[in-house]
């Protein structure tokens, strides 16, 4: 699934990153605890999380994840957005809660 589709399905906006139509994810993983995320190792995964600390970006960076979807309409601090930009990770933000955002993406074919 292209990130442009993720935007459209979850009504998200793009906080950092560009050329969303060229970035593709085949799976998604949702958690607020980073070690749960780190237990999984599949690079082409979208990280869905409510956590907006620098470690959210670092976690994605370690796992080679291309994109993060921040849920619950959380404000993304400037330094976190900057870190996403410098590490080349696309950062999206939606007002949907984690359950709904995940459900909508799953229903449209983005598997776990």
């Amino acid at each position, binding site marked *: 699934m292209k990130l442009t589709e993720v935007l459209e399905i979850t009504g998200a906006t793009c906080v950092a990153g560009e050329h969303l139509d060229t970035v593709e994810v085949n799976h998604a993983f949702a958690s607020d*605890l980073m*070690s*749960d995320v*780190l237990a999984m190792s599949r690079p082409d995964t979208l990280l869905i999380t409510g956590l907006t600390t*620098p470690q959210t970006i670092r976690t994605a960076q*370690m796992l080679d994840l291309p994109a993060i979807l921040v849920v619950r309409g959380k404000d993304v601090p400037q330094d976190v957005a900057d870190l996403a930009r410098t590490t080349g990770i696309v950062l999206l933000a939606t007002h949907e809660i984690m359950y709904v955002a995940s459900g909508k993406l799953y229903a449209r074919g983005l598997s776990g």
Partner: protein
Amino acid sequence: MPLEQSVEALRYLGLFSNLDASSVMSTAVHALHPEDRVAAARILMREKSISGVPIVDADFRLVGLISVSKIIEALADGRLADSVDSVMTRDVISLHAHDTFETILSCFQRFKFGRFPVVEEDGRLVGMITDTDVLSAIIRSFYSVYVHDQRRTMTLGSFSALSKEFENSADFVYGISCTGLENAGEGSARLKAFLQTKGFGESVVRRASVCAYEAEINVCIHAGGKGSLRAIARNGEIIVRVEDEGPGIENIDLAMKEGWSTATDAIRELGFGAGMGLANIRRFSDHLVIISGKDKPTKVEMIFLADKE
């Protein structure tokens, strides 16, 4: 293997540097005074199954020792009713409470006695060390070593052999220093960038980075944020070592369990404390050694083999 050689081997491993005489000794000590009778020493030895009794003055300062052989001599000479003072050894080889494990071992090697009294600076007796005490200290300290490898001793051997290498010629060195979590993970990010320049495959670099990251975060949330992250990356192998300054892990086997965590709610708010970090490290590394203990530094060494994938 003769005892002396295995003792050499243990010392070489340097794994028991955490142990000093005060942590090895037994403190339930039975002592007598110089004016007590030899017969009393004999009864004490028989009832407590001990092979030597330390003799102390009124202030509990060590003044002598009476061993089984002295009792046998006294028995032969019919001197059981004499005072301990008249038969005891006065030049007792004793240890100090803060003597290192190595000193203890060499004491056992040099003087072929079965037990050594342990004294404080002022000469007061605080404990005794027998070979059984040494053995149980070694066994206890294995609870503070975790080795994720069947070839336990070989891995441990390489751990200590690599220590010098890490000191003198690590390929990558990063000083961990964080008060909160702000820059936690920066070291691992740099390590990852470094490994990518070394021509390692994507997947081994990912495994090494994830594990380094988990260990770095642990230093930041559990160990006061001061430590180091080093790596040696050669010959198709990435060896990562993360060290901190304590407070250490009391029971490593417990800490390795998925879901076991001492993290507070405040830490969980920051996205950590699932109790998955060490389990992840075990899963993604090819060899793993953790050395720690209560009030000790924690050292985590992980090896990643490039050709495993």
